């Protein structure tokens, strides 16, 4: 069953067609890559899926239901999590609190119960604290739980962002250039992390990435965009050899490691 389906989805900004008639289908549990030269419209596709933009044409269906026109909040609540190109952490909160915020929708107590520190609120907090700490533990971030999120080293910030997104127990996880700014060894760790996330959390993953080693290394299927349209789709082996894809990347070495 397709978890996510884009049917001829597209969006115009004035005269510019940023994404045009895109067909994309994600099977449940798959690890799918979305690549293309800069400006191809990849992040726009993410924004369309998450409701930040509303498509001007076509449909987007998640778990069988159309999500076109739903606000980002509703889309996220329906089970789609994401990370961002420029890592968006809550700078004024600690690492632990960053994750705790993600559990907000699972709380039962009302505001007044919170202010009065009623038993139901305290029970909520104990549960959130335990689950958040457990999540940090599995991501290897326990030691930094009380550190300000701003003070985390770069590689760990990305990890925290992913951990936070998973706290909402999404069915689909969108990762926007998770390997940006990483050296080969960090990128390698990331690849293991993403595979491990998919196994452990049973989540479907759609990944935008420029880092070819990462994409080719972990994605089962890859969709290639150029100027807002799909120009190729297939397994990593097929994509690697596809002349249309190589041409689209003309001027940039398709096997380059720099993001």
């Amino acid at each position, binding site marked *: 069953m397709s978890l996510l389906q884009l049917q001829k989805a597209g969006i115009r900004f004035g005269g510019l067609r940023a994404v045009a008639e895109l067909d994309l289908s994600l099977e449940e549990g798959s690890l799918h890559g979305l690549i293309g030269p800069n400006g191809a419209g990849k992040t726009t596709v993410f924004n369309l899926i*998450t409701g*930040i933009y509303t498509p001007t044409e076509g449909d987007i269906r998640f778990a069988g239901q159309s999500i076109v026109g739903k*606000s*980002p*909040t509703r889309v*996220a*609540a329906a089970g789609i*999590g*994401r990370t*961002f190109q420029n890592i*968006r*952490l*809550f*700078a*004024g*909160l*600690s690492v632990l*609190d960053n994750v*705790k*915020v*993600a559990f*907000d*929708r699972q*709380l039962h*107590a009302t*505001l007044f119960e*919170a*202010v*009065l*520190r009623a*038993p139901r*609120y*305290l029970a*909520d*907090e104990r549960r*959130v*604290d335990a689950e958040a700490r457990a999540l940090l533990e599995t991501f290897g971030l326990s030691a930094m739980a*009380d*550190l*300000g999120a*701003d*003070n985390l080293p770069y590689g760990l910030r990305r990890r925290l962002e992913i951990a*936070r*997104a998973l*706290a*909402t127990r999404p069915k689909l996880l969108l990762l926007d250039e998770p390997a940006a700014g990483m050296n080969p060894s960090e990128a390698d760790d990331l690849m293991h992390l993403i595979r491990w996330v998919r196994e452990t959390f049973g989540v479907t993953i759609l990944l935008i990435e420029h880092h070819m080693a990462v994409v080719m290394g972990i994605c089962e299927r890859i969709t290639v965009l150029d100027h807002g349209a799909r120009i190729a789709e297939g397994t990593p082996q097929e994509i690697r050899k596809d002349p249309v894809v190589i041409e689209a990347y003309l001027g940039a070495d398709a096997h380059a490691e720099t993001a």
Partner: protein
Amino acid sequence: MSRGVLAGWAVFAALLAAVWGVEVFAVPWTDPYLTDIVIRIGFSLLAVMGLALVLGFTGQFSLGHAGFMAVGAYGSAALSVYAGLHPMLGVLLGGFAAALAGAAVGLPSLRLSGDYLAVVTLGFNQIIIVLIQNTPTLGGAQGLTGIPVATNFGWTFTWVLLGAFFIRNLLQSARGRVFAAVRDNEIATRSLGIDTTRAKVVAFVIGAFWAGIAGGLIAHYRSSIFPSQFQFDRSIEILAMVVLGGTGSLSGPLLAAGVLTALPELLRPVAEYRMVIYSLLLIGMMIVRPKGLLGNGELTDLFRRRRPAKKEAA
């Protein structure tokens, strides 16, 4: 109930007892001039804590806080004068009226970006004043008189304590985390499935409520109120206290409120230059220390020598 919560209640009860102890045993023997300053500091504290929540912690550019004070003041005054209600009940209802006004202003506007919200709240401040000036039953520009005097040290600081505990507990709770998240990165917060507009409105309404309480207490202090007490000037003063005290701190703005309310008294000779000094302070602070005196930290951090970046949920 856990020990921490019990301790919290105990502290509250003790402080409350202390407040009334002071009211009964100390106030009658104190120079009324001094009592007056302290009570007026209390008014500022109530106004400031609400704005600290809205502006400092949730990051909303609310520039018309005095407008909500006006709603509370005139609402409670009208109830006392025309309906003969007990003043403190009037104050409470005035707070609710202000909260309602907060919802009315917030619901449509909090979808707008920061700058626009600033202008709308400013506009709201203006509109309320114009409305009051044109309503004869509220005394118009000449003011509303004959309000029963009921505000004293005891009542003022009872409300201050209630407000302080309410807001402090709120900020250190799960809800407080969400407010900070909205302030730090609203887009990321929404991506977690959280309704950020609702969170902003909640903060806004609570802020308005406490401003309304401050207004109600002011109304019952000297038996008359004037629209000119609640104009844009006043909003700016409260804003200055929050900004100078520290956006992201509760005790910072409270401290600033105390200092800036008392300061004009101590600087009587340069009273004329008060607003000039305020504005220079604002500009200077923004250039030198943009996050305000205490930034994200609290006064208690200085005693525990804890890094302000760490935030523990209660």
